């Protein structure tokens, strides 16, 4: 009986172990279906493309003249200052992130975000130091656009917003909801300090832009159609954010064949 089990086990291991029969399983054959069947480039609904492209060109000029140089200057500041600004802005986003996590049924994440806000606002000196990260409370961002998507609301069509950049109908609605419900904005307005709202938005834009200077330049310098590249990047990034899954699992896997010349 033991011998029989041994034989069966050996057979199963040989049959199923990819490293042993690796050569056969790795054989990649060329098939025309590899490059015909996928259609995810057509999924982006962009009926306002003409207008969007015009706004995109304007944004691109504004980025080159204003945002990129300012972000580069910001990047030259000592890293503790950059981290402090980034942490402070991220901390201000946490109350709304926690609310959106609750609305999406992510109780654990909502509790973590609330904990982060509490710890960083107190021990972390008004959010300037990210103490919460060191005790395992990770930053997980959620916004109203993501909440609406979780509730089953579709993207709508693609929109490029002046200065704010790529978006779609759902995410623009989410952005307006964020502006209207942000407790930080409400507090600033109630104190007669409404000027702080655009300053916070601008600081956030500079901080975010400073983190992707190389990536944006690489994309801009090497795209045959920069507009389409940004549009695709936006959708992939949002899809990953909405699904809250690993990028490698989420992104559709291109069926690339390997050929030798």
């Amino acid at each position, binding site marked *: 009986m033991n011998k029989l*089990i041994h034989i069966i*086990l050996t057979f*199963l*291991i040989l049959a199923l*172990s*990819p*490293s*042993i029969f*690796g*050569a056969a*399983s*790795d*054989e990649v054959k060329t098939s*025309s279906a*590899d*490059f*015909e069947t*996928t259609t*995810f*480039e*057509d999924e*982006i609904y962009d009926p306002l493309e003409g207008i969007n492209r015009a706004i995109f060109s304007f944004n691109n000029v504004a980025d080159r003249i204003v945002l990129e140089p300012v972000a580069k200057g910001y990047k030259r500041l000592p*890293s503790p200052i950059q*981290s402090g600004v*980034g942490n402070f802005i991220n901390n201000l986003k946490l109350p709304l992130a926690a609310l959106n996590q609750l609305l999406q049924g992510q109780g654990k994440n909502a509790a973590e975000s609330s904990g982060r806000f509490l710890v960083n606002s107190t021990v972390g000196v008004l959010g300037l130091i990210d103490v919460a990260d060191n005790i395992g409370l990770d930053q997980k961002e959620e916004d109203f656009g993501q909440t609406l998507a979780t509730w089953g609301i579709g993207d709508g069509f693609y929109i490029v917003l002046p200065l704010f950049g790529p978006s779609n109908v759902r995410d623009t609605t989410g952005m307006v909801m964020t502006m209207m419900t942000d407790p930080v904005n409400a507090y600033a307005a109630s104190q007669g300090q409404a000027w702080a709202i655009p300053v916070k938005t601008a600081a956030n834009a500079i901080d975010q832009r400073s*983190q992707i*200077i*190389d*990536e944006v*330049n*690489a*994309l801009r*310098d*090497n*795209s*045959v*159609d920069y*507009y*389409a*590249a940004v*549009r*695709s*990047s936006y959708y*992939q*990034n949002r899809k*990953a*954010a909405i699904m809250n899954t690993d*990028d*490698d699992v*989420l*992104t559709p*896997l*291109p*069926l*690339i*064949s*390997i*050929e*030798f*010349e």
Partner: protein
Amino acid sequence: MHRIKILFVFLIFISLNAKANEAKNWLNKEIDIIISAIQNNDLPNENKFLMVENTINNNFAGTGIAKFVAGKSWNGSSKEVKKEYIKLFKRHLALSISSMMQGYSDQEYQLTNSSYDEKNKVTLVDMEIFSDTGSIQVTWRVKKSKDRFFVIDLLVADISLVVTKRSEFNSMLKSVDYNLSEFNKKLLSQNESSYQKITN
């Protein structure tokens, strides 16, 4: 019997893990070659790029990616046009990756994790690039063929290079009625412009 089951699962896990690690070690070596070429200040920029291009052409599934990115325009094109397109695409890919890696050349990086996707026969290798204020994650998709590894895609912060290129090329191809020959002219012009930027 329960022990046999555990042993069985364990052996499969070990096997998949070994496969993922093999790809990770290979990739680490190739990235080092690219980074050291970019960091070598004794080399003129043209030579740096040629070294990077050579490494990318040897290690990326360039022809397969080129076909995928061309989408439906591929089938109606002649052999010569396809050949020209693949040549131009490979240079375009090298310019795109070289440009991106240039930005990372003065930063620390680490290959943090690797896993083997049995269903798609693809190894996913995560790379973390550190800066003073944070880090960015890059995921390499690696496939093995004829006892060699090839990179089939690169993801930066959830954005796939190959999917983005396909979308971008499709938009441009649409403007020339999916005529690959016409598109080649645009790609050549873009390559020349990118080459100027990267070598100056």
